[in-house]
């Protein structure tokens, strides 16, 4: 299959093509169609040729993103691709490498959010009130924190949870949160 010309212009087009593919594949942008990409970036290319190019680049990007390749893995992978029959040119490899370096975090985050389907914490706000009602003798003038949490799933309406915490409850919460933080530190040390 004929590879696009390895000139600066070709690099720019290829880079833009990778952006378009990423937008459609990872960020859910349905407006980026094959026709749009071809018209914008490779207007002179015959449709089948462009289709093949898009498919090849898409496949490579998919492999790279799925494995969340680091620089070493990426280099090994791309080098292997340049040596393959019907693979990519060294210039194309360079463009892909540069693209991945710049977009890896963004694309990975997008893939992560696609796999989060339980309730997430969307937002949280709080204030401190002074309870002055004579509800129970030992509750005169006790400060309480009122916390509002917005819980929701992707694309669904949020649920608002409004909770009251006195000083003791906040301490209780802080103790648990410290435990979590400790576990997290151990986790990051281990991996």
């Amino acid at each position, binding site marked *: 299959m004929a590879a696009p010309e390895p000139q600066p212009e070709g690099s720019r087009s290829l880079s833009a093509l990778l952006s378009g593919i990423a937008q459609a594949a990872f960020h859910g942008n349905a407006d980026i169609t094959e026709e749009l990409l071809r018209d914008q970036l490779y207007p002179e290319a015959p449709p089948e040729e462009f289709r093949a190019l898009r498919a090849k680049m898409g496949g490579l990007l998919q492999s790279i993103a799925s494995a969340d390749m680091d620089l070493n893995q990426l280099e090994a992978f791309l080098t292997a691709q340049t040596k393959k029959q019907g693979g990519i040119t060294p210039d194309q490899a360079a463009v892909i490498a540069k693209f991945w370096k710049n977009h890896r975090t963004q694309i990975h985050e997008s893939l992560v959010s696609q796999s*989060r389907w339980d309730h997430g914490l969307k937002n*949280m706000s709080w204030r401190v009130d002074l309870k002055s*009602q004579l*509800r129970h003798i030992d509750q005169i003038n006790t*400060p309480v924190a009122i916390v509002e949490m917005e819980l929701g799933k992707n694309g669904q309406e949020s649920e608002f*949870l409004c909770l*009251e915490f006195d000083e003791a409850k906040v301490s209780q919460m802080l103790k648990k949160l410290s435990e*979590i933080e400790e576990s997290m530190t151990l986790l990051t040390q281990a991996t």
Partner: protein
Amino acid sequence: AADKIRLIPQDFLAELCEQIMQHLNHKIPGINTAELCQRIQTSGVDINIGDLAKIANTLSFLFSTAARNNLSTEELVTTLGSGVSTLPKHAVQVIRHVWNEQGKAIAVSEDAGNMATVGQFVDMKWKLGVAMSSDTCRSLKYPYVTVTLKVADPSGQITDKSFEMTIPQFKNFFRQFKEMASVLETV
């Protein structure tokens, strides 16, 4: 729900009323409907948690109204008799007994209005996980925290609310609570 109350064995009903009274007296944050329901079901009674919750709500309302109006035991029993005629005898007995023992001690809360939407934090469970792989990404390696809050809603029912946080979200969550603690200290 009035019919279902006749299904509840007397000692379980007494326990429910006890919890309700303790909740109204701010001794406990909430009524453990789920746990009680499970035990009632184990004893062979066919009642679901929705019905039990309704009964708990009704009794809670009954007791708090009685407290607000300073009803004596006789007055309460009379009210019961005139209102819900289908209330079984053993239920009336339990309610009468519980009110007789503890009715006077309930302090009436005046802020019932604006407390309507705020729940009480009871406890928190957590787990830390790492999502390794998914159908869209083989190498996900995404650490997250799952938190389950035990919450007593304004009517006293205890429920669980679960949600997930990313590490940055968790750090922010932690930070907010630390700020809350320092504000509470200085107020």
